[in-house]
């Protein structure tokens, strides 16, 4: 057994548990929506390895900007599922006091800042957050998660261009999930990989299998190390697939069943489970215990969120102005 495997082992079990937690959380959210107990939300089912792998490479110094498909990023960063779900339900115990709902959850104490649901909004804000890091000091970097849809917005060009010209410490993580709301990526762009665009800006770029959490972790560690030491942007594309629809509920009638099935065969969680069991990094009993733990955690989150109070009507006009 090599030193790498020894140090990596606790991490991999944790990666699996985090991915399972994200999946269970989002399936719970969707179930609440289907039961008429929650507003709609956008899930990241199928993309869990991307969120967990990138977060594995970060520490508390770093700041994160995410988007409407944020539950995976939040949970991987250590956010409390109870408070995320409470926010989705618009409850006062949510991270934003119920004023965000599912679409723009920020958790400042975890460094998850300025979550925007305008596709590309996160790209417009990331350079400014990094400019603060550049001017106020510290070794923290800024990670911005966006999709192939946001990469189609003009602001992608403006954002990565200014980050390159101003040497801003931004790790651009494009989660290329093949779908731009209800439109397949292949209908909107020639390139298969967003990472190929980085060279035009003089920005180092890489595509990684976004369904392989260990691969994402390794690539993200290299990318983070580059951004942290060079103080320059990097573009990391995690090539993945959105297994559920754009937003709940969604029959996915517009999805090619063969394509969907081929990606379900590559489900990042099922694949990783098999791999860990085969490697004996985890025993079947440990896996069962892990799944039970996750189930209990999410059930508790649902109960907490459902029982939490709504904000008072006074909150209608608070926090408009500083």
């Amino acid at each position: 057994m090599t030193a790498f495997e020894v140090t990596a082992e606790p991490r991999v079990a944790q990666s699996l548990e985090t991915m399972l937690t994200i999946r269970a959380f989002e399936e719970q959210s969707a179930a609440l929506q289907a039961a008429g107990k929650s507003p709609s939300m956008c899930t990241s089912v199928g993309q869990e390895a991307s969120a967990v792998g990138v977060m594995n490479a970060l520490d508390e110094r770093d700041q994160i900007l995410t988007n409407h498909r944020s539950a995976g990023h939040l949970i991987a960063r250590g956010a409390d599922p109870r408070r995320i779900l409470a926010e989705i339900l618009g409850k006062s115990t949510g991270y934003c006091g119920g004023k965000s709902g599912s679409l723009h959850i920020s958790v400042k104490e975890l460094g998850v800042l300025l979550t925007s649901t305008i596709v590309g909004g996160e790209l417009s804000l990331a350079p400014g957050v990094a400019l603060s890091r550049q001017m106020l000091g510290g070794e923290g970097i800024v990670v911005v998660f966006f999709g192939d849809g946001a990469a189609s917005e003009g602001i992608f060009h403006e954002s990565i261009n200014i980050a390159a010209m101003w040497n801003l410490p931004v790790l651009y993580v494009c989660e290329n999930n093949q779908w731009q709301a209800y439109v397949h990526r292949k209908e909107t762009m020639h390139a298969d990989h967003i990472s190929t665009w980085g060279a035009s800006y003089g920005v180092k770029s890489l595509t990684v299998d976004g369904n392989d959490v260990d691969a994402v972790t390794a690539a993200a560690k290299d990318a983070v190390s580059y951004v942290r030491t060079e103080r320059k942007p990097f573009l990391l594309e995690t090539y993945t697939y959105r297994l559920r629809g754009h937003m709940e509920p969604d029959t996915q009638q517009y999805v090619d069943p063969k394509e969907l099935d081929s990606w379900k065969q590559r489900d990042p969680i099922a694949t990783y489970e098999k791999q860990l069991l085969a490697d004996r990094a985890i025993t079947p009993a440990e896996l069962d215990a892990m799944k039970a733990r996750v189930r209990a955690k999410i059930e508790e989150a649902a109960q907490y969120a459902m029982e939490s109070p709504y904000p008072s009507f006074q909150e209608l006009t608070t926090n408009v102005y500083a």
Partner: protein
Amino acid sequence: MSMHEETSMRTMTMTMTPDAAMVEALAEEMRRDASVLTFGEGVATKGYELAKEFGPQRVRNTPLAEGIIAGTAAGAAATGLRPVIDLLFAPFLTFAMEEIVNSAGKLRYISGGQFSFPMVTIVRTGSGWAVGAQHNHNNEAWFVHSPGLKVVMPSNAADFKGLLKSAIRDDNPVMFFADIGLLHTPGEVPAGEHVVPLGKANVAREGSNVTLVSYGKSVHSCLAAASTLADEGVSAEVIDLRSLKPLDEETVLASVRKTGRAVLVHEAAAPCGVGAELAAIIAEKAFSSLRAPIVRLTGPDAPAPASFPLEAAYAPGADAIVAAVQKLTSS
């Protein structure tokens, strides 16, 4: 500060253009607070004095990309800096609406108060330079209608300085509309620390028969009209709003309650404009004081023309104000 400015020891004021007053305000605030920085299209090149004093970190040129200039300001404002950005002309704001309206204006509320956005966005607009409709569009009301933003539009050099200083110190995103026609007209500016609070109108001239409410360059048309009207025995009060949001309702209402007549004057078009808002407020809160219908004098619902005579006709002038008041007071 330019070498050409004169200091008057007697009044302790200096004569300078609004353009110079803005540079002075910015320089003073940058000296006072290390978190203030400025960037935009040509900011470091045109503002070479600022660039020289504060260096390339705090005075930056940007690409001609209003969206990312505003977005970068919002991101920086939320994380410890106080950016002042220059987007040149007000119509260019259409490229920055997402960042200003959806991010800077809303993310404080959406996040449950986790962030604030102490940033100032400077733009120029208004008739006077014959630049046409894509460089001249008094679109200030768009931002009054957007929650979370504050909006100012000064009428004189002293207010340019004092309002910009307040805007920089405010913890909210402030839209600073600079009326092009005023920028190179020198005026008196109090020496040293001069801060004009946001949300406080100025009674530019006291009067008793009619209230003229205005802002920006149109204030001067109102003052000229008031002078003509005085010769005819009509006493007009002129209110310079200075801030469009927050709006100083009390000063306007107190004046209308006194005079019983209100003429609302601005260069921006009438539909859903600041005049419409003021008319509604007056009708709601001072209706019983009104002795005549409220009158709005505004630019037309048309793009701003480039030709000088047409441009001059676009903005409501002193003659039109005098005529409107004569009609009101003779009935």
